[in-house]
């Protein structure tokens, strides 16, 4: 059995500038320390060219923190400071609770409220949570070891419920936005973490998922839309979190989704037929295959080699393609892709909740304690 860690270079056919095929050597060793430093830097200061990420900064925090968790390197950051900052993003109910339907977590302080990591909420005409920030906020608190005791669960769930549409899908914000499978996944994660499904109409969400199944057996962002690795993950992972995967999809349907997903492997994975591969799909599609028990039948070597070919050897992190700039999202999902492959230095990732197994176990302990508290009070 070949120890793949001994092989540090592999021959790869490349096109030279003159247009003829030459052989190069690609380095495929995993640079753990670089990635730790990459995430550390992401958590500090980003240059102005990242301004489009302002309203989604909390998701970047999640990628960095969960990435460090997967690298088993959370010790490099100040967890308490991080927890405080995350709680400052919670949209809490005002004294008169008139904003309950807008509660959740913000992506950043961009609205301009004064910093406050404890309640009560401050009235502001345009302050509301964002479903993806509520999801990543809760997940980040969890993986930092927080007990969620300062989360106003009732407010979060009220805010969540207000985002669900008639067709079962969700808006991101109460003011309105696009609606698609991404936000169903966010909603499912929120309910799962808070152990409370009153935040959504599960039946309607399941119907939306079913209607998003494509003729080609993948799942799109919505009915009629092209099947896509990201939305397929969101759908399958949501059903798994709801505990409804096997009852919603027949064995035949599951087999068909398995086939669609497994056909996404080219070297690494792409997200749609006839599109180029991209590192992040090693997680989106890989995790879906894992949830469907067939990831074991993929080609590990080709997948690993592709992910590592997108590794930035200088600054750390991963990019979607080789010789491209790394970013926190691809760095995180590249790592998760490697974790699915059993990369030795990495923690295992829960394929539905997208946090380490360790964070997941912490959640289970918390939820047990919540249930014990409830039963000891009644």
């Amino acid at each position: 059995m070949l120890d793949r860690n001994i092989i540090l270079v592999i021959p790869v056919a490349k096109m030279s500038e003159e247009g003829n095929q030459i052989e190069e050597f690609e380095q495929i060793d995993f640079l753990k320390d670089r990635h730790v430093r990459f995430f550390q830097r992401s958590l500090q200061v980003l240059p102005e060219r990242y301004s489009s990420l302002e309203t989604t900064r909390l998701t970047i925090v999640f990628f960095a923190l969960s990435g460090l968790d997967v690298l088993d390197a959370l010790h490099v950051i100040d967890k308490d400071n991080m927890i405080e900052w995350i709680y400052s993003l919670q949209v809490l109910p005002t004294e008169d609770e008139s904003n309950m339907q807008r509660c959740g977590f913000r992506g950043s302080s961009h609205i301009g409220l004064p910093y406050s990591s404890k309640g009560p909420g401050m009235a502001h005409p345009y302050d509301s949570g964002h479903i993806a920030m509520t999801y990543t906020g809760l997940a980040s608190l969890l993986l930092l070891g927080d007990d969620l005791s300062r989360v106003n669960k009732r407010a979060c769930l009220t805010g969540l419920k207000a985002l669900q549409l008639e067709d079962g899908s969700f808006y991101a914000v109460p003011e309105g936005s696009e609606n698609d499978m991404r936000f169903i996944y966010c909603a499912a994660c929120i309910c799962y973490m808070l152990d409370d499904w009153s935040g959504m109409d599960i039946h309607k969400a399941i119907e939306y998922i079913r209607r998003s199944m494509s003729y080609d057996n993948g799942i799109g962002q919505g009915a009629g839309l092209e099947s896509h690795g990201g939305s397929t993950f969101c759908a399958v992972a949501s059903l798994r979190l709801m505990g409804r995967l096997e009852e919603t999809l027949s064995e035949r349907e599951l087999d068909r989704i398995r086939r669609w997903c497994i056909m996404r492997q080219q070297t690494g994975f792409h997200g749609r037929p006839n599109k180029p591969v991209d590192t992040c799909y090693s997680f989106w599609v890989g995790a879906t295959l894992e949830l469907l028990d067939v990831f074991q039948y993929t080609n590990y070597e080709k997948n690993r080699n592709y992910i590592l070919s997108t590794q930035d050897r200088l600054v750390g992190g991963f990019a979607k393609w080789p010789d491209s700039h790394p970013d926190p999202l691809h760095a995180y999902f590249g790592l998760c892709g490697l974790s699915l492959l059993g990369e030795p230095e990495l923690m295992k990732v829960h394929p539905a909740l997208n946090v380490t197994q360790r964070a997941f176990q912490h959640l289970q302990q918390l939820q047990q304690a919540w249930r014990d508290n409830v039963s000891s009070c009644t």
Partner: protein
Amino acid sequence: FEWSDLEPVPQDDGPNPVVKIAYSEKFTDVFDYFRALLKNDEKSERAFTLTAEAIELNAANYTVWHYRRVLLQALEKDLRQEMRYITAIIEEQPKNYQVWHHRRMVVEWLSDPSEELEFIADILSQDAKNYHAWQHRQWVIQEYKLWDSELEFVERLLEEDVRNNSAWNQRHFVISHTTGYSDPAILDREVQYCLCQIRKAPHNESVWNYLKGILQDRGLSSHPGLLERVLELKETQCSPYLLAFLVDSYEDALETNNTRATLNQAQEVCALLAQVKDTIRREYWLFLGRSLESKYGPTAAPQSDAASSDAADQQELS
């Protein structure tokens, strides 16, 4: 505009900011004043003008877009002009969620989709697989019933790139919402169209997915003569997708008529895929072979429905 009456509102990340973005003075200024307007919910021309400046700096800020929409209505702004504005922004940033959502809102307010198909076609001419563009296109077509020339549009795109999976998806979208696939003449037309495209470009997952997709719920082995055509194509225009289609056709046949001969044919193709034609999925094809054997082979447990217990009676044991 006069701004001196307004107290700018800075961002406050507290003592230990995380993922802090280092903004220039200009950037900070624009948004500090934006935050001030937001807090007062000011509905004015200067607010409207500032949203455009904020959008130019960060078109992904959904709060700015929402506020702009509030102002568009409160100030009764010219929505035709807004259409021109959003057209220009989307051309510059066609992969941004907020700009497409904004366009949809303006189209809804105007109840005027008349520019949409041409606009989206232009965006698709720059990136024929832009998911936002296709999503907006499907919304417009379905909402305003603009089905009439869409199949023609799809065919044009497929002529340009027969491997455009988004175009194949759109083909299914149009037909399933107009004529449907129940009419045998339509179904056969589509099957013939697929076979024609396969001959031209055999290594194309999209066309095979489409072919399988339109037939699988009726039964892949139900379309007369198709299996024979596929077996012919196997000789000169083989591909992993053709072979997968074959396996699925054999499995479909096994469901109603479980014979060792058919099972062997399926196994042969699985082996061909695993060993020669689709080795990256070797383990999967071997797994599929084992599943088929276990479902339809001599040791298979009796199946529950009537059709297959008849099949079990007919099963020839090797």
